[in-house]
């Protein structure tokens, strides 16, 4: 098992490395010039060239890429922001906890809401509970999260005055962002739970359990749930990536100084080092979460655990 984890961690580094190259290349070839945006029309060509030289933007692609990778992977420095002229690593580290908190809370909300609903929908297949949950799931998936966020603001801030509409502070500042960001995940997770349960309910080993005289409630808890939730774990992992990426929009709506907002501003000003830094941090977070998901798998399913041990032993 330890061997497997080490192997996977090495793989994570490879993923982050590749993501770095891809994001660097994309940003390099995307139109738009940070110097033009920063200095505006008033600056002279000489001033702009001097700025380009200072930031190393006059170097050829490969040399820029090389120095970027060297800085990130050898010096562990994400660089200096063009706009704020401040080191990005420190900025990211102060912002990252907020984004991570929103992401994790979203997943928790998703799980708490959608798994019980999905289970109920499957158990009451074809009845009104099932239909209501289907409509609910569809609504969750189809409503755009920024629109839902604005509706929340209108209701809870403008009309009811319960929650602050923007900024950071206590927990109450995070309630609406988390709700808005969790929305899309609920629908997918609910449907996945439902179909997982339906598959398991028809399985032969459920009949075996019933034939043993196991009461129906125990059949559901002990025999159905863990089997049905295995495919759901994968979906949760995928949702985490989406939940963290989704903060780019939600943090903008609620003016939360997280990584998402930082990145979006950076995109607008072509602040390359910030965008790259953000992508690297998100890629690292996502790959670690994926590793955790796979480890949870191993805990739940002995077949997968055996596979991991077998693979690592090879």
């Amino acid at each position, binding site marked *: 098992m330890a061997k497997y984890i080490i192997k996977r961690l090495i793989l994570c580094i490879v993923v982050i490395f590749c993501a770095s190259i891809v994001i660097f290349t994309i940003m390099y070839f995307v139109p738009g010039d940070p110097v033009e945006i920063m200095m505006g029309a008033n600056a002279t060509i000489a001033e702009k060239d001097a700025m380009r030289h200072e930031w190393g933007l006059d170097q050829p692609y490969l040399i820029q890429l090389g120095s970027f990778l060297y800085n990130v992977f050898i010096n562990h420095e994400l660089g200096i922001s063009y706009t704020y002229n401040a080191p990005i690593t420190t900025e990211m580290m102060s912002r990252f906890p907020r984004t991570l908190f929103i992401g994790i809370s979203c997943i928790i909300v998703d799980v708490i809401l959608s798994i019980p609903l999905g289970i109920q929908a499957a158990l009451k297949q074809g009845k009104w509970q099932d239909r209501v949950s289907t409509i609910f799931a569809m609504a969750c998936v189809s409503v755009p999260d920024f629109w839902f966020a604005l509706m929340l603001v209108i209701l809870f801030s403008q009309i009811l005055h319960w929650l602050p509409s923007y900024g950071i502070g206590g927990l109450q500042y995070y309630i609406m962002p988390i709700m808005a960001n969790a929305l899309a995940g609920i629908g997918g997770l609910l449907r996945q739970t439902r179909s997982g349960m339906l598959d398991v309910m028809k399985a032969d080993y459920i*009949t*075996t359990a019933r*034939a043993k005289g196991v009461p129906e409630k125990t059949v559901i808890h002990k025999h159905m749930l863990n089997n049905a939730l295995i495919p759901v774990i994968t979906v949760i992992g995928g949702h985490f990536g989406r939940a963290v990426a989704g903060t780019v929009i939600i943090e903008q709506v609620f003016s939360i100084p997280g990584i998402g907002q930082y990145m979006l501003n950076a995109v607008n000003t072509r602040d390359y080092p910030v965008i790259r830094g953000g992508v690297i941090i998100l890629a690292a977070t996502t790959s670690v979460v994926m590793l955790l998901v796979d480890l949870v798998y191993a805990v739940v399913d002995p077949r997968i655990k*055996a596979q991991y041990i077998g693979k690592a032993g090879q």
Partner: protein
Amino acid sequence: MESKFLQVRDLQIEYTSGKQVIHAVNGVSFDLERGKTLGMVGETGAGKTSIAKSIIGVLPNPPARITGGEILLDGKNLLEASEEEMLKIRGNQISMIFQDPMTALNPLMTIGDQIAEAIELHSENAGKHAAKEQAIKILKMVGITEERYEEFPYQFSGGMKQRVVIAIALSCNPELLLADEPTTALDVTIQAQVLDMMNDLRRRLNSAMILITHDLGVVAEMCDDVAVVYAGEIIEKGTKEDIFDHPTHPYTNGLFGSLPMMAVGEKRLHPINGMMPDPTNLPKGCKFSPRCPYATDDCRTGQIVLDEITPGHFCRCIRNSKEAHNV
């Protein structure tokens, strides 16, 4: 009237699929004494598994529905028993061995826990520890060593899994064992081992057994009585000797005709022509008449009853009952 151990009376089961109603079991009656084995033979889809599942009460409802009849165990009608009563009977008085060992075990539970679960539910002094000890004992009985108690189903071969399934079924010394094609999914070499083991254990516990199979060789080996099921009806039943030495119904004859007879040295087998009738639209009269070489107009219209042709040997065929009366 002295009540027999198991009496099934006029059992009727329907499946609903969309708007169609499938008549899976149409008035099946049979008796079984303690310690005896009844072989239930018939083609796939004849309703054998539905009969067994209805006895132990695990028919999936919906789509299945028991529409009539009664199942008496020691005189008590199981179809009217409450769910709590059935929970005590299931796995305890009656237990079932399933057809496909590959899917009959929970993949996420150790095999030991799966055996101990039934014991814990049904034994009087239900402690976890006592249940585990009993489960280990049963495991050894089916020829699996104690070290494998903590292993998971994926670590077992098909034959070994079927041993575990049998161990679960036998763990609470059932009075009635329902074996639904217990060896169909197994290699021929393993089949014999598993059958021998089942028979041996069943004798030791003096359990009655209903053995569902389409393998007449297995019936010859294991059973006291035989019931031939076709399209949800018993078309012939009697002792093993009755059925094997004097098969009377054309379908039973057809079943034997489709077996290779080594002694006679025939070059070709004789299959039964045609297919089982569509269970949503069963023929009137004799259900076998569309495939029967001897069918007459009487067969196609009249209600054919199960006639006793010799004591204890019943056959649902007007031709044979006439012959029997003429003799």
